[in-house]
């Protein structure tokens, strides 16, 4: 692999692994707020027991997020120094904001949430939990703004040497792409939180352990999961797809596997993109649906990939197409599963229906896959640009760092992260074995 390829692979690997944890942290933080609010309004201490249990798990996920997150901030400089030099005046702002506004808040209130429940009392502990949730969601906002600048740069000028200068802080933070991407991302994180909590609730019910608490967490989680899964498709997913169509038409065509411009374009559900011959092999398609979803009219024209010059095509069309279809497919599955579970909860049959409990328990990895696939779609769709229409990926890496050094660090990260995974499962397993027990010393 070339030095550039290794720089790309290392960033992709470390950020993909990293994001497994923040999506869980952000999702669980919201679940905690919901559980604690339910404890208060329903005057039911079981919700508090559930909240305490998930707080401990959130603590572990938070640590994993921190230790895998610091390398992300460093890698802009270490592996992408030309990009940093050119764009740092802009994206350095949002990255610094994340540290200043989100991380200080999170690290402080996490201690209060984890260890000072009794000293704070219920009301102030709820506020601390809400502050923790705010911190994690703020962090997501600033990172999404950073990414949105790369996807759809706003509020900058480029000088003669190619360096970008920020002209408007509000354009950077209120970038229309950022708004849509943030909403879609946070809904995705909420799905992860809901599925994780539902899976553990289902696990305890299937084992007939901690039944009262497990029912509470499962009930809250499936409702939250159903709402979030619907919101992932509409309005956020719909808005995201339209934004890609409007601002990145090549990426839109590639991710849909739409090679040739046509009126009344069909939507491909399944099929293999054949980039050489520019068609989808063995497709299952719904006629005219792509035109309808994009423009709300059955007969409008959708531009195909061949409409655009080759050097603007994303460089891995097949992976982009598959990532998008995996995300969308799983998203549809989530609506079905959580919708059915919520319906049965309403009918009072959810807790006895073992097949569905099994499905809910086994489904927990799927949102992680869907979120990962979604980010793959976004980032592969941005290629071949680092900052769209401004800076190509090939012009952003560190030229003074050799491929050997990068391979060394990449292998190091792989080994360490393999170890982290083992430790994480070991500790989660311990927490699961102990379960949500009522009396818990701080």
């Amino acid at each position: 692999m070339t030095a550039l390829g290794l720089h790309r692979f290392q960033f992709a690997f470390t950020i993909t692994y990293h994001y497994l944890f923040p999506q869980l942290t952000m999702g669980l933080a919201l679940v905690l707020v919901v559980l604690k609010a339910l404890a208060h309004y329903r005057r039911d201490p079981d919700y508090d027991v559930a909240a305490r249990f998930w707080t401990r798990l959130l603590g572990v996920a938070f640590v994993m997020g921190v230790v895998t997150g610091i390398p992300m901030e460093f890698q802009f400089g270490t592996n992408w120094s030309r990009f940093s030099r050119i764009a740092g005046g802009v994206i350095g702002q949002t990255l610094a904001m994340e540290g200043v506004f989100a991380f200080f808040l999170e690290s402080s209130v996490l201690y209060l949430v984890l260890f000072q429940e009794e000293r704070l009392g219920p009301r102030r502990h709820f506020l601390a939990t809400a502050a923790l949730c705010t911190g994690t969601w703020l962090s997501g906002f600033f990172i999404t703004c950073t990414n949105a600048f790369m996807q759809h740069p706003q509020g900058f000028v480029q000088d003669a040497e190619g360096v970008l200068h920020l002209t408007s802080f509000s354009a950077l933070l209120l970038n229309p792409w950022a708004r849509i991407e943030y909403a879609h991302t946070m809904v995705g994180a909420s799905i992860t939180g809901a599925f994780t909590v539902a899976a553990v609730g289902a696990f305890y019910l299937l084992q007939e352990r901690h039944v009262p608490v497990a029912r509470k967490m499962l009930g809250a989680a499936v409702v939250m999961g159903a709402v979030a899964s619907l919101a992932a498709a509409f309005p956020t997913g719909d808005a995201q797809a339209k934004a890609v169509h409007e601002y990145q038409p090549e990426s839109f065509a590639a991710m849909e596997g739409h090679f040739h411009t046509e009126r009344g374009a069909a939507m491909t559900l399944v099929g293999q993109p054949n980039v050489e011959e520019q068609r989808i092999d063995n497709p299952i398609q719904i006629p005219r649906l792509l035109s309808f979803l994009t423009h709300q009219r059955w007969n409008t024209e959708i531009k195909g990939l061949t409409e655009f010059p080759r050097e603007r095509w994303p460089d891995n069309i097949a992976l982009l197409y598959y990532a998008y279809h995996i995300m969308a497919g799983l998203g549809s599955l989530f609506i079905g599963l959580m919708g059915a579970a919520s319906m049965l909860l309403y009918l009072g049959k959810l807790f006895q229906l073992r097949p569905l409990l099994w499905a809910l328990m086994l489904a927990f990895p799927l949102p992680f896959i869907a979120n990962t696939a979604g980010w793959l779609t976004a980032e592969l769709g941005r290629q071949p640009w680092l900052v769209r229409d401004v800076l190509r990926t090939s012009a952003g890496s560190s030229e003074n760092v050799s491929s050997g050094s990068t391979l060394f660090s990449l292998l190091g990260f792989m080994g360490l992260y393999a170890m982290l995974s083992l430790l994480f499962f070991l500790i989660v397993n311990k927490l699961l074995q102990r379960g949500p027990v009522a009396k818990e010393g701080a």
Partner: protein
Amino acid sequence: MANVWFWLLAVVLAVYAVLDGFDFGVGMLHFVVAKSQAERGTLLRSIGPVWDGNEVWLIAAGGTLFGAFPALYATAFSGFYLPLMIVLWLLLFRALGIELRHHSDSPLWHELWDVAFSGSSLLLALFFGAALGNLVRGLPLDEKGDFFEPLWTNFRVGDRTGILDWYTLLVGVTATAALALHGALWLNWKTTGELVERARLWAHRLWLAVLALTVITTIASVIVQPQLLRNVTRLPIGAILPLFAFAGLALARLSLRAAPRRAFFGSAAFVLGLILSAAYAMFPYALAARVPGRELSIAQAAAQPATLSGMLAWWLPGMALAIAYSLLIYSRMPKTFTTEGEEH
């Protein structure tokens, strides 16, 4: 405006060194001050509520550096590629050491994470010290303004420098000793019983070592980089910074027994004063070069003035909030940590 940011960044880095510095110090003394696993648990509890917040100062410094000095961030981070990767991995082990230990009651598990915590703390102090040494000594910047340093070359301070040479190692050892002292003074303030006795004993020993090493390092710095004295000869008021540092060190010694809190603040002033002295000596360069004329000046490294002033408008209130959160936690954490009553 760029100069304002240079000083803000220097202060953030110095505060990081002061805050995470005592975490490192506690880590280094983990096996010598605490003799039993229960005592080691106490040491960890004494930094447990704050270490993560302390580390955030590093992340904030990184973000601030990126936003205010993109060219410096790009050059320094890519040039220091290998040591930075190692620092990242050490930070990972340090965090795991602190956070995973209490998840099991197995003594073996505790031992594992004690070693991870202690060893990574020691190496981190050494590497951060060596990094400071590199900045003071000057970097092998090329015509394009880039550099890449291997971990070491021949340990001489020549044209083909590595991260580690005799000088940067000396700075690293000095930093290690200074932070160990700082950690000992934290424990001297925050623990009780035998722990505090041993912490004080180590503070005594380390104090002499720190004094000697600081004097030697200061002399060596001037030999290695004669330019260091240019600012203080031009504008002698800057000499107040090293004087402040040494006053802090003296205070640490004088208050060691009678006023542990004041002694800790003394060593905090020492660490703060030393780093700001180094910043004063480097000014107006962001990166000193081995080959004269290739320096990266603060002005060259900075983002444009409009960005810098806009950044100030959100950064100052944001940091005020951050300080408020930190103060809240420091005020809410227990005043002292005792080993009695710990179950093991």
